[in-house]
């Protein structure tokens, strides 16, 4: 019992230490010394851009959404409590902003019958210009918005169904169903 308590305390301290440096970074950013925060953000920017770009599936919009994500991060900086690593927190904000956009568009689509402009989604990154990957990216961008979001979050970003369900406000079962259909649509898309 005692051993266990000590072991747990040690683990807890380690975690606490890691997150407390993140908290410290945020605290300092708020008080004016944003250097550490900026460099952390710059490190994470490619990941943030990637998730925005894939979810939004529109290069122009993705840039706008990424900027929005940055702004929202700054504006909600005070609410960071150090419960998760700062990089994960920043990432999640980007996902949320992208999903917000998707939702608003989704609503719009219902009324206006908007179709995705697929041409704007060109080569995302010259370094990854392997053909199969390009094909997959292309295929992902043609998926229906929700299925797209689920497959990106689950299979690329590694979120669990539980996390996705809370992010998208859908049931876990729905998330699974979306993943199921998204993967099969991708298969079809690639076979064409």
């Amino acid at each position, binding site marked *: 019992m005692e051993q266990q308590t000590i072991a747990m305390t040690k683990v807890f301290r380690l975690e606490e230490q890691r997150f407390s440096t993140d908290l410290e970074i945020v605290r300092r950013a708020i008080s004016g010394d944003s250097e550490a925060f900026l460099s952390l953000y710059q490190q994470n920017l490619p990941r943030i851009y990637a998730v925005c770009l894939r979810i939004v599936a529109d290069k122009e919009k993705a840039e706008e959404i990424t900027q929005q994500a940055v702004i929202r991060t700054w504006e909600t900086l005070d609410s960071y409590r150090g419960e998760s690593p700062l990089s994960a927190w920043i990432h999640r904000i980007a996902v949320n902003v992208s999903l917000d956009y998707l939702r608003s568009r989704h609503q719009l689509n219902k009324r206006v019958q908007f179709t995705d402009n697929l041409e704007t989604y060109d080569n995302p*990154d010259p370094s990854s210009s392997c053909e199969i990957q390009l094909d997959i*990216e292309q295929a992902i961008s043609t998926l229906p918005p929700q299925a797209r979001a689920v497959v990106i979050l689950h299979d690329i970003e590694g979120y669990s169904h539980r996390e996705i369900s809370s992010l998208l406000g859908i049931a876990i079962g729905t998330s699974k169903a979306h993943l199921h259909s998204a993967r099969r649509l991708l298969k079809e898309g690639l076979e064409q």
Partner: protein
Amino acid sequence: MNTKHVSHLIDDYIDGVLNAEDQKNVELHLQKCSQCQKEFSDIQSIVRDLHQLPKSITPPDKLQTAIDRIMLKYSTNHRLPQQRSAKAWNLLNSKWVFRIAAGFFVFIGTGIIMWFYLHKTADVEDIFVQKIETPSPAMSANPKPDDKIIVEIRERQKERKVRPEPIIPVIPLKKDVQLHAITTPLQQQPITAETVAVAQAPETSNQSILSKRPVNFGNIKGKVIDSVSGEPLIGANIVLQGTSIGVATDTNGEYRILSIPEGQYNVKVNFIGYKAQILANLSVKTDSSRQLDFRLSPQTLASEAVVVTAQRPVIKRDVTSSLVIVESKSLRSAQSNIQQFAIDGVRMPFESYKSFNTEDYSKIDENEFKDALSNPLSTFSIDVDAASYSNIRRFINNGQLPPSDAVRIEEMINYFKYDYPQPSDRHPFSVNTEVAVCPWNSGNNLLLIGLQGKHLDAEKLPPSNLVFLLDVSGSMSDPNKLPLVKAAFRILVQQLRSQDRVAVVVYAGNAGLVLPSTAGNERRKILDAIDKLEAGGSTAGGEGIKLAYKIARENFLKSGNNRVILTTDGDFNVGISSEGELMRLIEEERRDNIFLSVLGFGMGNYKDSKMEKLADRGNGNYAYIDDIQEARKVFGEQMAGTLYAIAKDVKIQIEFNPALIKSYRLIGYENRMLNKEDFKDDKKDAGELGAGHTVTALYEIVLNKQVSDIQPIDSLKYQTTIIKPESFRADELLTVKLRYKQPTDTTSILMTTPVKKSIKSIESPSRSFRFASAVAMFGMILRDSKEKANSNYDLVLQYTKESKGIDKEGYNTEFMKLVETCKLLDNRKGQ
């Protein structure tokens, strides 16, 4: 299980989140269904491809630039309260700017249109075209209906989208931000043609506010470290006095204050447990970065007593649901009416709390009054250890009374230095005695025996061969353990000379030599070895001791001081950990004139009993080091005594004159008592006296008021006890007999000092006597001794005050604070 069903499970199967049963079913189905097999391999390859997609995509330069600008804007806005308020003002202002602008535009717009239609003059058309051609994303070339513009502006504010602004040049993100960055909040608002046209008045007034602020900025940066240990201080505050500018140091002890308006500042650095430092009149110049490092020196916190009064009683009415949350460290002093404990939020059965504190103390049975006629001899070994006092101090400073077995009165008394004269004869120490009325019981008398070891000039000390045996097991990782050991070591290294040799052996899991025997003046090399130490692993104490003795033997200095210094929290748990085996090993080495000193560190699983025994067996001393002050005392001021013995196996035997003394009681030294025959036995080990050390022992004695007070012992069958007639005529109360050996000798030398019957009144004893009796009283109160009689905290304080000046290092001032704290803590009856 059909194909359709399995198709739905395949995803979970690939993701590995199926339960065992489903997983088995799917596998069985896959073996026989080729359709599902194909689906499985297709989906698996898709998932694999998805996993391989890059998680990062390099953003285009355009986006990078835009984000840099957002970052710049926010980091400057976030920076200082005064700027934040400027931002608030700007926002407020811009809101009104928009409203006024919109309204004004509507007014002008309709006016112009009307005018345009009425007059149709070329001049007016030019003006209109000029206005609407001002670059603006919001404002298209065609004037819209008025209400729509307002709506659009509001939406724009709501959306807070950031677009590249044509007005602001792109500022690369850099640390020192200039004025234009500060003024950007106003300009960075989406500016439409209307606002540019109409917002002149508020904008100029805003600029006048801005222009009053200093326009140039400089930076300061640096590091804050502990002046003793050199360790970086994390979270120290650096404040520019009189401003709200301040930062805390990071995990490397470094800080950086950016964008300080030009001027003169007083920079204050403070950190709990350290003396605050103020650097006055630092001038900050534009675009310059000043490096300012601080070395803070540790400070004892003399905090004022805080009295916490509870207004509401702890609910006890419904016992089954009442819960008192107690910190583990206060459990020992907890009231007994607590029905249930919660330790760190976990409910615990009442009994289990006892196992929570793993500190070990041997039980002390206090010496009782002994009849001088039947027990005329009192024999004990000296004890120069002072560990108990620092341990008690640790408890009290934690807001808790020490457990009574942790209170060893002789170690408390011997913690302090007394005014005894230096030896004037051939002996290495002087023997001093004093008898006066007992302060806590005026019917009795108190005898003080004080030994003063010869002071040795540090320079003239024989060379030392020191082997440090450092515990670096996992249990030593606390800040008051290994880091304190390192700090203490740094103090010691400063005192080493070229003829001294130091080696360092560590033990944790395995024992290892981290520093081979090195000359004392190679400080860098020694300190480097120490700095690299890190705590981890379990404790192979026994193996470490063996290795340390081996190294000590290899570098043995015949005319020198050969010593193994063990630092530990006493938690030996691997190897020859059986106490008996360890003791035997140490005793063997002692005969080879390699001594052992034990330094105790830390708390929690501090094994006091084991460590003292180790030191006693090794003919060494034992000190408990709880903070850097204590390390300085042991290693700095008392270096000679701690490390260099002037006499060993020092035993004291008192022969009382039963004609004058009825009974006596030795205060403390309970675990140092010897049998009377041990006194002459040179094989019997006893305490060691270091250079400059003092040893003080107190006896409470009861005198015979008249001859009839002498109670004959129950008559023995074979012998009679007769008091010699001359004893009645003699004015000797007792005789102090003392035996010691020179550090390398095997035969003892006897010293005899008779004590005359000259009893000082309660007002006249020396200040050494007063102080020693004050400390003894304090110890008796803490132990709740049945012999404490009239002892109380006020009396302790009074005696301490009267003995002021005795201790030049100011330890008795600290003692007074400790007594005062204790007085507040103690809620036992009768205190």
